[in-house]
C-alpha cells in the first residue's frame, strides 16, 4: 500500500505540490508530470493525504499481507519527519491484548514523539485483522511479525528495526526473529516463559471464570471448560503452543535482548539477559479485565527502546 508520507515525497521529487484546502485536496504540477496512474493513487489515498496535510496525523491505519487474511496495522510516523529507527510492537494475546491496547497506543505515540517510526499490528484472527482464531496458528502469527517488519521498513524507510514483544507477543517476536540480524534490539515486557506454561495460565483463568459465574448451567460449565481464558483454540494452535519452548528466546543473540519485568519473580529462561524491574501489579495470571496503563513500565520501555 501507499504510505501518505511516501506518496508526498514521491510527488515532491516530481515537482508536484499537494496541499489541503477546506477538506479538498489541491495540487500544482508541471505539465505532463501527473500521470493517470499518479492521479489514481492521489484519489485512492485522498483521505489519508488530507489528514496528513491538515497536520492531524497521529497514526495511519491500513491492512496488509496475505490477500485472503489481511493483517491490520497502525503506523505512527516519527514526529518532525526523518526518523532512522522503526519499532514494531508485537502485542500480547487474548485478554492481555484488550488490557494493554490503550497502554501500547500511548507508548507508540510517545516513541513517535521521540523521533521513531512505530508500527502496531494485530495478528491474524485477533483485533481488527482478518481471520478467526480457529483458522490461524502460531506459525501464522510468527509470519505476521516478519511481514509487519517488512511493511514497516517499506513505509518508514528505516533501516534500524527494534521489536517490542509483550507477554506471549515476546515469545512470538523472538520466534520470528530467531538468529536473523535484521533486528537490532528486542525489548520484552513480562515475557511468558514458554507456550506450555502460558496455556496452563489460560486454563487457570478459565477455571476462575467458570467458578465466579454462579449462573452457569451444568452443561454450559462443561462446554466452557474446553475454552482457554474465554477463547476456543484449535487443536493445531494448542499443539503449536506446547511446542514453543524457551529455545525461542535462546536462539536470539543475547546481546540484542532486554527484559522489562513488573515483578522480580519473573523467571526468564535465558540467563545473562539484562533485566529491569518496574514494579506494577498487572494480574496477568488472573481473570482481571481492567485496562492497565502502567506509567513506570512504559517509562522503562521507552528508555530501552530509544537509547542508542
Amino acid at each position, binding site marked *: 500500500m501507499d504510505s501518505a508520507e511516501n506518496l508526498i515525497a514521491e510527488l515532491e521529487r516530481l515537482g508536484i505540490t499537494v496541499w489541503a484546502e477546506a477538506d479538498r485536496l489541491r495540487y500544482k504540477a508541471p505539465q505532463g508530470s501527473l500521470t493517470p496512474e499518479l492521479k489514481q493513487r492521489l484519489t485512492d489515498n485522498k483521505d489519508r493525504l488530507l489528514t496528513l496535510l491538515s497536520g492531524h496525523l497521529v497514526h495511519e491505519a491500513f491492512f496488509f499481507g496475505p490477500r485472503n487474511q489481511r493483517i491490520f496495522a497502525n503506523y505512527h510516523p516519527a514526529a518532525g519527519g526523518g526518523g532512522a529507527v522503526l519499532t514494531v510492537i508485537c502485542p500480547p494475546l487474548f485478554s492481555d491484548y*484488550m488490557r494493554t*491496547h490503550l497502554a501500547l497506543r500511548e507508548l507508540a505515540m510517545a516513541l513517535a514523539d521521540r523521533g521513531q517510526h512505530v508500527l502496531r499490528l494485530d495478528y491474524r484472527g485477533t483485533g481488527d485483522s482478518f481471520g478467526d482464531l480457529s483458522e490461524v496458528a502460531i506459525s501464522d502469527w510468527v509470519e505476521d511479525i516478519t511481514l509487519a517488519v517488512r511493511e514497516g521498513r517499506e513505509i518508514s524507510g528505516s533501516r534500524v528495526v527494534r521489536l517490542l514483544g509483550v507477554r506471549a507477543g515476546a515469545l512470538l517476536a523472538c520466534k520470528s526473529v530467531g538468529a536473523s540480524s535484521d533486528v537490532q534490539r528486542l525489548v520484552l515486557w513480562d515475557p511468558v516463559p514458554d507456550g506450555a506454561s502460558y496455556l496452563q495460565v489460560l486454563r487457570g483463568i478459565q477455571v476462575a471464570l467458570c467458578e465466579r459465574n454462579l*449462573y452457569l448451567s451444568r452443561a454450559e460449565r462443561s462446554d466452557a471448560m474446553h*475454552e482457554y481464558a474465554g477463547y476456543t483454540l484449535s487443536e493445531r494452535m494448542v499443539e503449536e503452543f506446547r511446542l514453543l519452548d524457551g529455545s525461542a528466546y535462546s536462539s536470539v543473540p543475547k546481546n540484542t535482548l532486554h527484559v522489562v519485568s513488573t515483578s522480580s519473580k519473573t523467571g526468564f529462561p535465558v540467563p545473562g539477559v539484562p533485566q529491569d524491574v518496574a514494579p506494577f501489579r498487572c494480574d496477568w495470571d488472573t481473570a482481571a479485565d*481492567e485496562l492497565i496503563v502502567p506509567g513506570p513500565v512504559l517509562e522503562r520501555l521507552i528508555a530501552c527502546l530509544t537509547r542508542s
Partner: protein
Amino acid sequence: MSDPVLTEEPLQFGDGGRLFGILTLPSMSHRKAPGLPVFVFLNAGLLHRVGPRRLYVHLARDLSRMGFSSLRVDLAGIGDSPPRPGLTNQQSVAADYDEILRVLESRLARVPLILAGLCSGADNAIRLAPKDSRVVGLVLLDPVCSPDDGFSARAFVSKYTNTARYVAWLKRRFEAPTTQPRGSQEQIDPLTLRDAPTLEQLRDAPLEQLRSAFESIRERDGRVLSVFTQYALQYYNQAGQLARVLGVAGYQQFCTELFWPQAEHTYTLELHRRRLIDAIKTWAGGFIRSRIDVTRNIGTD
C-alpha cells in the same frame, strides 16, 4: 482489506481526521436486499472499536455476510480517536455522532441506521435515537431499566435458591485467600464511562429518555433488541420487565427482550458470545425480510 464476501476500510474522518473507525461493506454478491440499515457499533466503555473480546468485529463481519454494512467506531477519547478537550462526555458523543453521519452519508448516501452498543454504548444509543430520524433499530446490551414491583421478591428468591452460591461460599470459607484485593490507580475499569446508577436512583429514574427512544423507533417502523446479562441483576431479573416498566404501546410487535443471567456483562465466555451473535443475526434477519417484502410490494403495485 477483503475476504471473498466483504471489504473493510479504515476511516479517519471528522474535523482533521480525528475520529477513527472501520467501515465493513458486503461484496456486491452479498447485497441481498436494497436499502438495508447500516449498523453503527458504539464503544463499550473504554474498550476500543473491536468491542469486548472482539465481539463487534465478529458481528460486523457476520452481518456483512448477510448483506449489512457497518461502522465500528472509536468515539473521541477512546481507542485511536483523541479526546475533544473542553466538552462533557455527552457533548463529545453528540459531536462525534454528527461526524459519523457525515462520513456515512458521504460513503453510502443517506441510509437508515441501527445503533448497537454494550453498557455505555447502549446508553449512547438510547440518547441519540430520538433525535435522529435515520435510526430505525437499536441493539441494547445491558441497557438501564427500572426495577418493577416484583423485582425485590424475585431477587430474594433467586439469591437463596441458587445452590452454586452456597458452594462458592463454602469454598471461600475453607480456602485460604490467595489473591490480594485489587485497586491499583493505574488499572482502569474498561466500563467506567457508564454512570453506574444505584438501585435507589434506578427506582426513581425518569424513564422518559428510554421511553422516548423506544417510541421513536416504533414511529419509524423500526425494531429494538435488548439483552440483559447477570450484570443487570442489580436492577433487572425477569424477561419482560423492561416491557412492563416502559409501558410502550405495541412493545411486543417491535421489541425483542432477552434475559441471559448465565452470561457475564462483557460476554467473557466464547459460548455466550456465539449465542449473542446468533441472536443478533436472527433479529437482523427481520430487516432483510421486511425490505424484501417492501421490494415485492413495490413490484406488484
